[in-house]
């Protein structure tokens, strides 16, 4: 048996809400799995479709855009 599957998720987090929410989750010690890696953006509207397509094409198991 190999290791259990651990998805790689790219997260685009808006600095003002989702990223701030992530900070607050930290302050509140809310535990969640470490699979998502956050790219901080100044607004979720900044996330070019090309970034999402390329992320998936290059091997991401999922992309989260939060804002």
């Amino acid at each position, binding site marked *: 048996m190999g290791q259990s599957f*651990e998805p*790689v998720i*790219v997260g685009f987090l808006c*600095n003002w809400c989702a*990223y*701030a929410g*992530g*900070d607050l*989750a*930290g*302050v*509140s*010690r*809310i*535990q*969640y*799995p*470490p699979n998502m*890696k*956050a*790219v*901080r*953006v*100044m*607004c979720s*509207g*900044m*996330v*070019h*479709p*090309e*970034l999402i397509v*390329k*992320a998936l094409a*290059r*091997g*991401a198991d999922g992309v989260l855009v939060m804002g």
Partner: protein
Amino acid sequence: MVECGRHLNIEIHTLSEITEVAGSVGNYTVTVKQKPRFVDMDKCIACGLCAEKCPKKVADEFNMGISKRKAVYIQYGQTVPLKYAIDDSSCLYFQKGKCRACEKFCPTGAINFEDVETTKTILTGAVILSPGHVPFNPGKYDYTGYGRIPDVVTSMEYERMLSAGGPLMGHLAKPSDNQEPLSIAWLQCVGSRSISRHDRSYCSSVCCMYAIKQCLVTADHLPSHATQTVFYMDIRSHGKNFDRYYEDAAEKGVRFIRERPHTFDPGPNGSGVSITWMDKDGGKRTELFDMAVMSVGMEPPSDAEKLSKIAAIDLDQWGFARTDSFSPSQSSRKGICIGGSFSGPMAIPRSVTQASSAACKVSMELASAKGTLTKERTYPEERDVDQGEPRIGVFVCSCGMNIAGVVDVKAVAEYAKTLPDVVFVENNLFTCSTDTQVIIGGKVKELNLNRVVIAACTPRTHEPLFQETLKDAGLNGYLMEMANIRNHNAWVHKNTPEMATQKAKDQVRMAVAKVALASSLRSQSVPVTQKALVIGGGLSGMTAALGFSELGYDTVLIEKSDQLGGNAHYLEKTADGQTLRPALEQMIADVENNARITVMKKATLAEAKGSVGNFTGLIQTEENARTDVSFGVAVVATGGRETKPSEYMYGSDPGVFTHLEFDAFTAGKSDAVLKAECVAFIQCVGSRNKERPYCSRVCCTHTVKKAIALKEMDPEKQVFVFYRDIRTYGVFETWYHKARQLGVIFIQYDSDTKPDVRREDAKIVVTATDPILQQPVAIYADYLVLASAIESSGISGLSQLFKFSVDEDGFINEAHPKLRPVDMSVDGLFVAGLCHYPKPVDESIAQAMAAVSRAGVLLAKTEMKLNPITSFVTDRCDGCALCVDVCPYHAIRLVEYQGHASMQKRIETDTALCKGCGICAATCPKGGVQVHGFTLDQLMAQVDAVLKAS
């Protein structure tokens, strides 16, 4: 704290006490006695070796004695300045003559046993006293068992037990046997709201909310079958959004019992505590709890009296600094102001507001000397590094144990060394400490680093600090990237340390990839219009306008109605009992006669444009005249209004009033009122319900004071108050006490047992179930006064104009509810008074002064730097104009220019309007417009770095 420590115009003297304050406003000489630290601040690098080697352990006061610290110590990980100190009262060398272990091990030779006490004098124009408060010590109380039963703790001790960074690392354990407690009881009002010998007669205002917070945090820490029970008299969740929090706790299963337990006994085998109280039906009930938490109140600091003598200021009857409703931060001595809870029990937002109002008062006193002694930060010229190869330095923070307790920071640092372009890596205990900034700057210069990665906490709070450090070292601040391995990692992946370490490596790799592509960014400057606009002419607005004028700024004050003063016209007295009218009239005259203030009545703001430092607007008056106005900042003080009830026969029965109506009705002491035999009040009418799930904050005190006035008019008059919780917070509690002493009868009801009201001939009959008698009671009243809810007024149009945010209850949102309580969500706008939340006169005035103080920081500058994170146009733009319409800030225009052969089109962006949201960048199919600091290449590099697993 860090910002304070780094501020050029703030000098910090630690271990210091003032011993004399001579002189007068504008010219004080303060004598300061500084105790020896025995550690040379210039040499200490806070490595902690001294504390590691020190053999002497003493109870750690920061952790309420739950853990031990050494005789050489820092109080907590983030202390400013981060320098160790020797406590000579426990140090073995000072007490017994030998040891000096720390001296041997200190790598920098910072220990100095010869250090002595020094005295200095400081020349200053004004003084702000903010010594805060101390928690009540229930040791004096024998009946709660504190000190006798091990599992009875104070809320302060419990707070440390709950803290993830505290002595138990957040793993709750009973002091008696270290087992996890599964049933915990809180006892409210310990030391507060009681006139027995050791207690304080006021309400400490904060303990209900912190107890509820502790319940909810506890529920998160413990298994779901664990229970939380709160024994209380009234739940005082009178702050903004507090009632929601309380309702939420009740819904989540926290048990609230409105009883005062009378007996506390140790549980079986000395573990736990058995609590006995009298039930509603008169029966005795005993329950065993694993732990009991005493919600202790606030007391003035133990040396308040000494301090008051030194500063020659008056204290009130409880030992808090005496202030005045109309000047809430002014002490009895001119030029000495009070910040925070030294002026009375209050929670964080009010303390911060109060402290800002003290800063405002001081600036007003010293306005003539403004700017004469301030220092400005200057930076060395920036090195031009954009062209060269990246040379990246990575600093990995342990954050004490905050990060290092979960993430293997050493492994992360080792890993960072293997990344491309990284030439230097270091792990620091606290990367944000002042000393580490010196180290970072030194490394930048020594190794010629041209990019820096800080793997630590969140850029949302710490980016400015590290940017400064780079600038001090001659690098552009934007050549730095943070990897958030604390908030987004160590704190949230506690149970999977290996995966957390892996993620931290990924985060560092992403930051390195991004920063390698970073380029220097420069901010543009725009001139600041040094004028203020104040919207709303109530007490808050007038206070703000007068404040600005004293600081030397011209102000336009617009008032919708035909008179200044707002709600204050209808109030008889302030909450602390002062008559309002003379002060109000004086204030109106001061505003109207002030050469710097332009008052516009029957006026509203019809248009607003621009941004912080540079707003323009159009004021419309009733006669349809329109006036242009330009301003650098605005204070929104549009106030509130008493709502008209829709129940209890209001509007259909002439004997039913609202507060303000009844005040007006009784103002002339009409015969009718004199003759009335019985007056009833119903509280929370329209507040704390589905429609308005908030507490209107002032109505309980208003009712209690009116009830007293009626009793004083004629002690035979019967006065009844139907209430849910009486929320006479802080020193207003003494009015409640007085009302009960005078014979006012208080009858409690719940949201589902509201009183019934009907008319029977000459009387209004109010019926309800008395919870003490457990029987229905009927009151025959001549008048019924409804404590109706307070709503904000006049903000919906403004919020559209300025695009500021308003909460679900219709009150203006602050930028941060605790730490930035007067800043609004839009830069350059500030809020004061009832439009922020219902509050009494003194709090409205303090908030208005705080707004002036905060706005004054912006107005003091003749020019302001714009955020350089904005869009820019690249060569690839071909003028397709797809982005023009999507920009929400209208910052993009299409322009024509002369190309090689023909006229060409491309876009132009306006940096002052652009907010850097990047919607344009995501819309452009060609990369023709990008955002500085977040270019497509940089974001793509981060994505690639995620996928390139290490």
